[in-house]
């Protein structure tokens, strides 16, 4: 069980209704996204989202570290 802070951006933040939330999670990052997608009704399937932990991109199969800052990265549109 890890205590994590999840950051939301762009359409994910609009759907979640908040910039970030803290929660306890047991499992990998893919499971975390699926749980939060169901809870907040995110339109984006996991295949279109990347995930970062503590400021660096990581794999969906990684488990979150305790105290980690997790960010779900929807498709980017800078430039």
């Amino acid at each position, binding site marked *: 069980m890890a205590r994590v802070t999840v950051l939301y951006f762009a359409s994910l933040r*609009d759907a979640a209704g908040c910039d970030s939330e803290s929660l306890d999670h047991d499992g990998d990052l893919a499971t975390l996204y699926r749980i939060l997608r169901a809870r907040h009704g995110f339109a984006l399937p996991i295949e279109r989202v990347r995930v970062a932990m503590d400021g660096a991109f990581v794999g969906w199969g990684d488990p979150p570290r305790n105290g980690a800052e997790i960010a779900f990265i929807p498709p*980017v549109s800078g*430039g």
Partner: protein
Amino acid sequence: MARFAIADAAFDIAPLRERLLRAEAGAYASFEGWVRNHNEGRAATGLRYEAYRALAEAEGERIIDEALERFAIADAACVHRIGELAVGDLAVWVGVSAGHRGAAFTACRWIIDEVKSRVPIWKHERYVEGDAQWLHPQQQDLQ
């Protein structure tokens, strides 16, 4: 000095370009992205860019480092705006200095392509009809 930066207000290109000048560099290529009055067939009034700033700065810096390794260039830099922008505002700037023009053009194009596809920045576009949306393009829409 960081070569990639996020700017939350309008910025001057002149001092950024100045830092790329080199006595051994004969070529300089630059790119600017400006806010257009339309996108994908809809009339736009402006937009807002949002970034995951820590990761955007780290990823942008990695792109410039990779460009310096891949191409025969002297130096390169990129600045991307966030916040509210109006039509005609400068959204992103890339500058590259090199010994020869081929490498300057190729690296400049490569950097803007990588920034658009990798750096966590999102565009929230407003339309003349009053609605607005976040753009989350498919990878193949980026070119």
